């Protein structure tokens, strides 16, 4: 299983990368970590004419707080983000979710930007970005635009990125220390893609849930928020009954896509169970 031949371009900076993207259009593909693209090339599922290797483009892997946002460069490696004290402090949901993402060697090369641009429906990080109301910065030679995570993940391996655009940054509002969070996943083996995964963040005020974000991966054909579950806990004390009702609402959130590991009925059971567990655990972390 060897990839077909391609022309190899290695821009030295972002401008050169954007120009290459513009020049080659549909014929060019960005090579970032390669942990999703190269397997597909090796299996000949894709055969790009031109690979634009952006690993020499500096400045795209920084993690920093800017104002009210945690800003993560698209080329930041999963391994670095998993160990990052800034991420642990300002987006602990991401740190927890990283315990479920692949294995060491994959995390050493794979990038957050590449992962979310690839948008595998069972990938964990898109659900994290959705639950954290992230904004994604998409750049081209024509300029820059920001896309909310809610509008970014459109279908299986489909995002709002246009031809000629690449993701450069992910911005997440800094989580207040009082915010509860939890990530729950079922997978065949530790590190596998999720069969179903649920990401939750919760804010509580005066004993009632004031804000809830619930997102899931692996259930439908793309990562998505679950407004029915959110609505079922907001305004409640998030007691056992509210959690049970909210989790049950998750069953009908979308049409589950049956997979090798789980048929539709099992996926519905999984999302209900994982929503309940995630809501419970997130609540214990609320301050």
């Amino acid at each position: 299983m060897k990839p077909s031949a391609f022309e190899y371009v290695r821009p030295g900076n972002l401008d050169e990368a954007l120009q290459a993207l513009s020049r080659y259009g549909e014929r060019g593909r960005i090579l970032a970590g390669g942990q999703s693209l190269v397997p597909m090339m090796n299996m000949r599922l894709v055969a790009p004419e031109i690979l634009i290797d952006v690993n020499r483009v500096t400045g795209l892997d920084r993690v920093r707080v800017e104002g009210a946002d945690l800003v993560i460069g698209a080329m930041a490696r999963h391994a670095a983000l998993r160990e990052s004290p800034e991420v642990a402090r300002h987006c602990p949901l991401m740190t927890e979710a990283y315990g479920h993402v692949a294995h060491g060697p994959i995390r050493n090369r794979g990038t957050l930007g590449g992962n979310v641009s690839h948008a595998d429906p069972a990938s964990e990080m898109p659900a994290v970005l959705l639950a954290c109301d992230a904004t994604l910065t998409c750049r081209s030679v024509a300029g820059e635009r920001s896309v909310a995570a809610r509008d970014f993940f459109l279908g299986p391996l489909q995002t709002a990125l246009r031809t000629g655009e690449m993701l450069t940054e992910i911005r997440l509002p800094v989580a207040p220390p009082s915010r509860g969070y939890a990530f729950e996943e079922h997978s065949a083996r530790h590190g596998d893609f999720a069969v179903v995964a649920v990401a939750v963040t919760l804010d509580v005020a005066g004993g009632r849930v004031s804000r809830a974000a619930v997102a899931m991966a692996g259930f439908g054909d793309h990562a998505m928020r679950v407004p029915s579950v959110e609505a079922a806990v907001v305004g409640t004390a998030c007691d056992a009954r509210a959690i049970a009702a909210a989790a049950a609402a998750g069953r009908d959130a979308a049409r589950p896509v049956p997979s090798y590991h789980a048929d539709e009925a099992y996926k519905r059971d999984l999302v209900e169970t994982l929503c309940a567990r995630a809501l419970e655990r997130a609540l214990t972390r609320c301050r």
Partner: protein
Amino acid sequence: MSTVNVTLMVNGHRYSRDVPARMLLSDFLRDELALKGTHVGCEHGVCGTCNVLLDGRAVRSCLMFAVQADGAEIRTVEGLAANGKLHPLQDAFWQKHGLQCGFCTPGMLISATELLERCPEPSEEQIREAVSANLCRCTGYFNIVEAVRHAAAELKGGSR
């Protein structure tokens, strides 16, 4: 066919070759440099038999193109032994029967080397997490975990 130059260090030696861009790093090591210790199992990143250390970090060499390793320092399983002596991990795998067919072993050694270099006193859970990056069909992992634990103790005890 057009080629691209790659110049890199492998196990302390410098190499410079002109290769097709599509040549995988795993094939480069095995076929260009005749370093057959790095194995090829799945070529889509799940089995770990192709693991090598790139600038100190374990990576899937089947998911990199050789040309991407330009300027890098690579260590393969052939680079673990020094001065004719087995690396403590290699010795531990031998002593604790951490291999049977041996196909997964180079990849395991690479994962374990990265672990012990970054985390000299790993817990059992950390050892299991590290070796979970590699598929072993023979051993059931028990003796692999034992071998890594033994090597960590030996290295800590300064017996090498």
